[in-house]
């Protein structure tokens, strides 16, 4: 009752105020007709309060998202089932789901009476042009009387999470390991170094078949471990993404960073599909050591945001150890030649390094002198990668991800051709190995 009283709308309060004024006037003037008006104005809100306070029905709410993970720009359907779990029918209920504004306006529904035990299904679509994790919900119910004098808001507590992942562009495969022949299926050396047991198990993740639990290593590690389906002698790669604020320009969704993330997602997904075990790192450190699931990769990338300008220097040792014996693929923003040189040092000997240098300045407007200077810096950056023996492809605002990836492929292929012409025997060996 108290809640209902507090729920009086402006209209309700105005009616009560007018009613009180009318009572005073009626008493002063002795006007019976005015008293009747006053009674109407006072009794109506009172009855509405009582009616609303008496409406003690309970609703159960169930929300499902399909899919829970959706690429940028694609819609996901939210489905809400409201069930009347009380024994009295509901009144008209206004329903509003709380979604972040990035997903659009709050979806609203007007529900007529729900009989006991019955339910209503509400559906709506959400679409986001931004990556990220978004909370859907909680659901809010608004009850009001038929005259709009009282309004009660009740809220459910649960919310669901929608993950908007970066879009994935299908890429053409090429042997990224280049001339060294460190392609998929040929990293026996590292397996031998670690031991099969360890390499063949990984921690349990939701959705794994319980029959695959590897009890021996579970007992040893104290965590639920499962056997890998994949071959343990897996090809490995490390993906490094530059997430510094200073390295990127433009506002999401049209920014150099989004381009870089989308490129990383496409390359990562491509490599995982190709059977690579992926390490994911940003400029500050390693995010994932052993990625073999496209979904996990995309989840991680969905949550990536630009962070402040920490120097690359600090993370180099960690990156180097994560990238040991792996092909390194770096996606960089605006980076000085010095920093580029540092970054190239993470590549182990006898592995190849690929870099996509995103020309972040293309996402901003620069004065001619600045533009010229930025052009010089960018050229120096490219040179730093090339000097360190990396394959590098420059990407601008208009570049397509698969095109840029194809450029890298060209470089790798030409290097391989060069190597072939130099050492025929080696070429023959390598060609056979690659096949």
């Amino acid at each position, binding site marked *: 009752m108290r809640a209902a009283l507090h729920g009086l709308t402006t209209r309700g309060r105005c009616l009560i105020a007018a009613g009180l004024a009318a009572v005073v006037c009626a008493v002063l003037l002795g006007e019976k007709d005015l008293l009747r008006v006053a009674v109407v104005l006072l009794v109506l809100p009172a009855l509405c309060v009582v*009616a609303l306070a008496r409406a003690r029905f309970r609703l159960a709410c169930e929300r499902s998202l399909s899919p829970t993970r959706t690429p940028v720009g694609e819609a996901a359907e939210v489905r809400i089932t409201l069930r009347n779990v009380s024994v009295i029918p509901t009144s008209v209920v206004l329903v509003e789901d709380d979604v972040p504004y990035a997903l659009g306006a709050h979806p609203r529904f007007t529900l007529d009476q729900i009989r006991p035990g*019955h339910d209503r299904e509400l559906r709506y679509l959400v679409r986001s042009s931004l990556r990220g994790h978004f909370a859907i919900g909680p659901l809010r119910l608004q009850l009001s009387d038929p005259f709009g004098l009282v309004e009660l808001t009740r809220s459910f507590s649960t919310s669901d999470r929608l993950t908007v992942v970066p879009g994935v562009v299908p890429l053409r495969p090429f042997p990224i390991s280049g001339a060294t022949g460190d392609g998929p299926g040929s990293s026996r050396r590292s397996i031998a170094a670690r031991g099969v047991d360890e390499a063949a198990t990984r921690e349990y993740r939701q959705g794994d078949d319980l029959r695959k639990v590897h009890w021996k290593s579970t007992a040893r590690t104290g965590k639920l471990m499962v056997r890998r389906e994949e071959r343990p002698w897996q090809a490995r790669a490390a993906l490094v993404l530059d997430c510094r604020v200073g390295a990127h320009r433009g506002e999401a969704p049209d920014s150099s960073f989004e381009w870089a993330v989308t490129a990383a997602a496409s390359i990562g997904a491509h490599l995982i599909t190709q059977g690579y075990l992926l390490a994911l790192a940003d400029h500050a450190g390693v995010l994932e050591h052993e990625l073999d699931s496209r979904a996990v990769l995309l989840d991680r990338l969905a949550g990536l945001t630009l962070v402040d300008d920490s120097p690359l220097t600090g993370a180099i040792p960690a990156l180097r150890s994560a990238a040991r014996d792996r092909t390194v693929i770096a996606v960089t923003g605006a980076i000085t030649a010095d920093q580029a040189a540092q970054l190239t040092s993470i590549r182990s000997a006898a592995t190849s390094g690929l870099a996509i240098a995103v020309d972040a300045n293309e996402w901003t407007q620069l004065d001619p002198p600045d533009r010229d200077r930025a052009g010089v810096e960018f050229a120096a950056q490219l040179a730093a990668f090339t000097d360190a023996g990396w394959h590098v492809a420059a990407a601008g605002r208009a570049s397509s991800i698969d095109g840029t990836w194809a450029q890298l492929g060209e470089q790798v292929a030409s290097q391989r051709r060069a190597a072939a012409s130099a050492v025929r025997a080696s070429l023959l060996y390598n060609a056979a190995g690659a096949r």
Partner: protein
Amino acid sequence: MMSASTRLTVAAALATFLGALPLSGSFSDWGWLGHTVGAIALIAAVGLALRAVRAPAWAVVVGQLIALLLFATAAFASAEALGGIIPSLGSFEQFRVLANDGLDDIQYLAAPIPPSTEMIAMTAIGVGVIAIVVDFVAAGLRRPAIAGLALLALFAVATSVTNGVPWIEFGMAAAGYLVLLAVEERERLLAWGRVITAHDSASGPAFAAPAPAGATVRQRPRYATASRIGVVTLAVALIVPAAVPGLSRNLLAKVGAGADGVGNGDNGTTGDSLSPFTRLKGSLTESATTTLFTVTSTVDNPYYLRTIVLDQYTPAGWRASGDDDDTTRIGPGLPLGPQVQQLQSQGQTRQVSSVITIGQYSDSYLPIYYSASSVSSPPSSSGTRRSSSWQYDAELGEVSSSRLTTSPGEQYTVTAVEPKPSQAALSAAAPVAANDPIMKRWGDLPAINSKVLQITQDAVGDATTPWAKSVALYNYFTDGRNGFQYSLQTAGGSSNDALLDFLTNKQGFCEQYASAMAAMLRIEGIPSRVVLGYTSGTYDAASKTWTVTNLDAHAWVEGYFTGIGWVEFDPTPLGDGRTQYEPYLPAPTTTPNEQPTEDQPTADSSTDVEQAPESSSDLITTLPTTDDTSSGSAISASTAIAIAIAVVVIALLLIPAATRAAARRRRSALARGPDPGLAAHAAWDEMTATAIDRGVQLPATDSTRALARRLLAVPSLDEPAKSAITLIADAEERSVYARHAGVEGDLAAALRTARHGLLSGLSRGRRCWIALAPRSVLAGAGRGQSRLALRYTQTRDRLAAAARGLLPSNR
């Protein structure tokens, strides 16, 4: 499909229409309604059309104003309009005239008035403007609560004009407002979000009842709750003010005394809320002296100038009956009474002609002399219609107008033929017969206190002829030995009790004297009436004019004598020295109706002048005495109303219990009946209803068996009750699902046992409460399932019958 704005426009028009209904109290018939409804409908139609083409809100208002103007032109000023509809300058002039006439009507006519053209026009246009405002605020701005202010204004006009709006009209006006609120709120809800109804939602429960026939129609939130709340609100609003005693003066006055005349403004003749006596007293007790009018006369002793005649004597006192249908326009050659004509032929009359110049006198009655033969029109009465001219009522000797009032500077001439009957003629006048129409008209008496009768008898003494009796009564008041004193410090009122008070206390002023003597004349069988007017005033010899001030207001008596007509008496004894002067009536001369004023007219009025100011302050506070006299019966009437309301309320409160009892009897009868299926349903329904009454939760979604389990879980059930419940549930289950309904056992007896068991273990108060407010009735629960079961059974029976008809008979 109606759009939101369409529904709101219609609702606004409906609210305005219902809000205009209370205005009917101001009119004597419903002739005004047509134009008003036309205006509202036109405004709504224009609103609908403009909103259909999505015109902005201001354009809608402009369009509606233009439409209203065209409508008013076509309806009320088409003569001057172009093509009968486009207003020209002439039409606006016509509107101005209509408005003036309408304002005059409002000012001078008392409700209810006949719906004249100007009033119809004003009402239609006024309500039309309100309709535009309501439409704009409610449908344009979507603020229906605020539109209530415009409707309230309409209602205020209605209440201020009439003496309380009838409850039914108030109810309709309020209902219109509530409808407006509810419609707007519903539109708000519908516009709030996507509307999801049972049919939009694919996943209904499997056991949902089959969709009704009209299932293709999209269901939307309905007005059920709104109408429930609205009806209760209106009921409370109609009952509560009637039950509040302090405020319902209007109600009391209406119920208690009906039209109690004096002291109540509804006597219909004055158009003024004050009774003539109250005005007289107010005039006498006013602290300032104002010159009302001056008189230049052809004679040097003109008699009193009369304004109003009080012809009815009711328990509440003297009042004017307002019976003024027999009137003629003033002018020369006004009809003289037959007796006056006879006296004129006998030379027993006197011709008096006076020019009266109005000063501060502002009234709808012209002061004239008795038996006027000609009254010239004051200049202002140039109107041509009956209502806008001064009318002479020969029977009463009044000149009044329903519309005009006098204004300063106006002059008119009154010529009168004053009867001067001889003493002999008066003495010879025979008593008026009891069945004479004159007696019926002027001799009517209410029940009179026996003490008053006694006093009258004593005063009359042994006089026998009407004249002798009249003189005796006159002497009774004017003879100083009887102890009557002039005093303005007397409470007003001329009612029955006031009469006795006056005759006992012997203190009063002209109101009491005139009332008392007129009443006593009627007691003695002499037709009489009280005349209000002015004494001759103060004579200024230099200018030869009489100046009449407010302090000259006076009341006197006329008695009717056969063959002579009305003869005037002024029983008021005049104060300070004037009381000695009464030489003529103990021994009446040939001029009996020449009263003391004849010789010293100025002194007559000067007594009032001297007495009045000192007493003015405490008099006004004691004025409303007539209300008190009527309140006794009124309170008993209000008690009766309160009792009646209480009875109705109690009857209403008993409805659920009665409904429940009726249902129980019906079901018990069915449970004893021959049809096993029906008996099972009835017993089951009654048992579940009892359980619901007790507060057991019985979800409509549960199966019969599950419900039976819930029933069996009720605490305090004994074994017989449990087996009875099981039996009834079994019977119900069989009747619904089995090929043949019916179980072994006495369902009626089982029902009794089950009911007893279900209600056992409850306190007496709780059981009373269950009987008075049975949940099964109040919540309307427990019906759906059994109805469904019944329909299922019926369908099955029909199908079975059809199948039997189709199959070849084995027999």
